[in-house]
């Protein structure tokens, strides 16, 4: 089912949580709403679900205007951050809930066999008789997903689905959700503040700030071509170096990079830690190493430039670097944004 948001607005008291958001989600697409807290991403998701009514604009499911359809008739599956499983029902009863309260009457055998199928889909065979308090967080979230899928929703909506889980469990569930999505092909929209999660999982990432969409595109598009300093900073670690733009080039100390389309004057140069080279001889930006952080996949160096700006960059695991060492930094690639 295709979803279409048209100039959607939501205000809480005086706070404008969502300002004039328009968004198209194609049928079968897996889309991430990514943004910091307060960016309105959860409010948008809840409006699509019908758990919140918009103050302006329209939401279409296919060709049908769903703006005023209440949540119970909207046919969405919603997965909550803290699972919201019914604590007094077994896993099987939780999954069966939607079918039991449905206007479409189903007999016991049909419900039971559907529950068994769903338990198999979420790989929880044999846990149907447990209560939610008796299973792990990751298992609970899988039950929540099975429960949402049981009513054959037109759209699947997930609110920070893995936010409350350990990093390892989160990574597994992410891959698994991707598999389930390709198996079922159901239009899916999920909210996260974790860039890695959005980039790993989604076909398309929609980045929000202060209730507005600042950029959207495939993970490749938003990573390779961030269109604002905010997106650059939000998607990952970034170094900021003050620069001066003249005739399409940005100059910072001894180095310069292409800055086509940026107005002359003060600007900021953004680079990823992996895009910096460290050498003991010039040319480059002179810097002193302040600290070295060892990580499984390399060494992260925190350094300070001669003018006191902090810089972070990565070197190979074998490279010997020590705090207090002096050297020069050069850039492999960088993004220049006016201002600063």
């Amino acid at each position: 089912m295709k979803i279409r948001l048209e100039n959607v607005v939501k205000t809480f008291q005086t706070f404008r949580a969502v300002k004039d958001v328009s968004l198209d989600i194609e049928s079968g697409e897996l889309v991430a709403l990514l943004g910091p807290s307060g960016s309105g991403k959860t409010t948008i998701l809840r409006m699509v679900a019908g758990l919140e009514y918009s103050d302006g604009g329209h939401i279409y499911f296919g060709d049908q205007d769903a703006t005023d359809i209440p949540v119970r008739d909207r046919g969405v599956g919603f997965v909550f951050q803290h699972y919201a499983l019914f604590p007094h029902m077994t896993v099987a009863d939780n999954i069966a809930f939607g079918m039991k309260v449905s206007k479409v009457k189903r007999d016991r055998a049909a419900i039971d066999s559907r529950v068994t199928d769903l338990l198999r889909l979420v790989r929880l065979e044999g846990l149907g008789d447990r209560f939610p308090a008796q299973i792990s967080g990751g298992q609970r979230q899988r039950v929540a997903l099975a429960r949402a899928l049981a009513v054959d929703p037109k759209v699947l909506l997930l609110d920070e689905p893995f936010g409350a889980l350990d990093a390892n469990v989160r990574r597994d569930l992410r891959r698994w959700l991707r598999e389930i999505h390709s198996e079922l092909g159901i239009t899916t929209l999920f909210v996260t503040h974790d860039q890695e999660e959005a980039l790993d999982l989604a076909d398309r990432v929609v980045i929000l700030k202060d209730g507005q969409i600042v950029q959207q595109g495939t993970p490749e598009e938003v990573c390779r071509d961030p269109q604002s300093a905010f997106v650059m900073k939000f998607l990952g670690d970034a170094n900021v170096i003050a620069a001066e733009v003249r005739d399409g080039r940005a100059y910072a100390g001894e180095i310069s990079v292409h800055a086509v389309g940026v107005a002359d004057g003060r600007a900021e140069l953004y680079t990823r830690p992996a895009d910096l080279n460290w050498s003991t001889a010039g040319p480059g930006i002179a810097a002193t190493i302040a600290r070295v952080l060892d990580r499984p996949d390399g060494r992260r160096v925190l350094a300070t430039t001669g003018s006191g700006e902090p810089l972070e960059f990565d070197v190979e695991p074998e490279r010997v670097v020590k705090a207090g060492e002096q050297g020069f930094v050069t850039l492999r690639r960088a993004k220049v944004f006016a201002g600063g």
Partner: protein
Amino acid sequence: MRRRNVLPGLPLSLGVTLFYVGLIVVLPLAALVIKAASLGPADYWQIVSSSRAVASYRVTVLSALGATIFNLFFGLALAWVITRYRFPGRRIVDAVVDLPFALPTAVAGIALTALFANNGWFGSVLEGFGIKVAYTPLGIMIAMCFTSLPFIVRTVQPVLEDLDPALEEAAQSLGGSDWAIFRRVILPLLAPALLAGVSLSFARCLGEFGAIIFIAGNQPMSTEITALLIFIRLEEYDYQAAAAIASVLLLAAFFMLAVTNWLQARALRYTVKG
């Protein structure tokens, strides 16, 4: 090696509480049982099964049941309204719930009698429909309702307040109607608190005295409650008979507590880990 406890003050606080519980709760109950036991089985049975005593049990227990069932519905509704909705005067309603606790029960009894007497505000209206309240079992029930109302409201209220709104949202998104959500999700989660309130309310009704004796009429065999019969026996210096009848009330209260505890444990099965 001595086991160390992080929390300080265990011996002192445990000693003080056990001493107090022994002195105030266990000792009088033991005295009651001993007094009743001094009668011998035949005399005991004759007193507790006398037709006047049995009639008093019937009116007390039936009225207490009626009042508790009424409060179960009304108390739940009141707690629901206070916690779920925001309306002007909500805090006043919330405060008024405690009034039956704050008011001396005799005052409540006199006020209810004045209202429901034949010439009272309610009584005169009800008489037109042929309903008599004052000096009938119905009056006893109303007095019991009044004094036991806060129990159910105050046990259910905190549970309702803590209910995760996401549970209802989840149920709605799964297509549940308001009634289905109430019956299948909210009510089962409230059940343990409701049962606790019911058992407290029922126990209070069994023992209520002050509020009832003014409105009941106190006719032996019809509107005489057990607590009053015990009082009459005491007035006659027949302590053994008073203790014997009291022991029947005590048994009824224990039985009720046991049943509700068992039901509560059943309703809370899902919280057991393992």
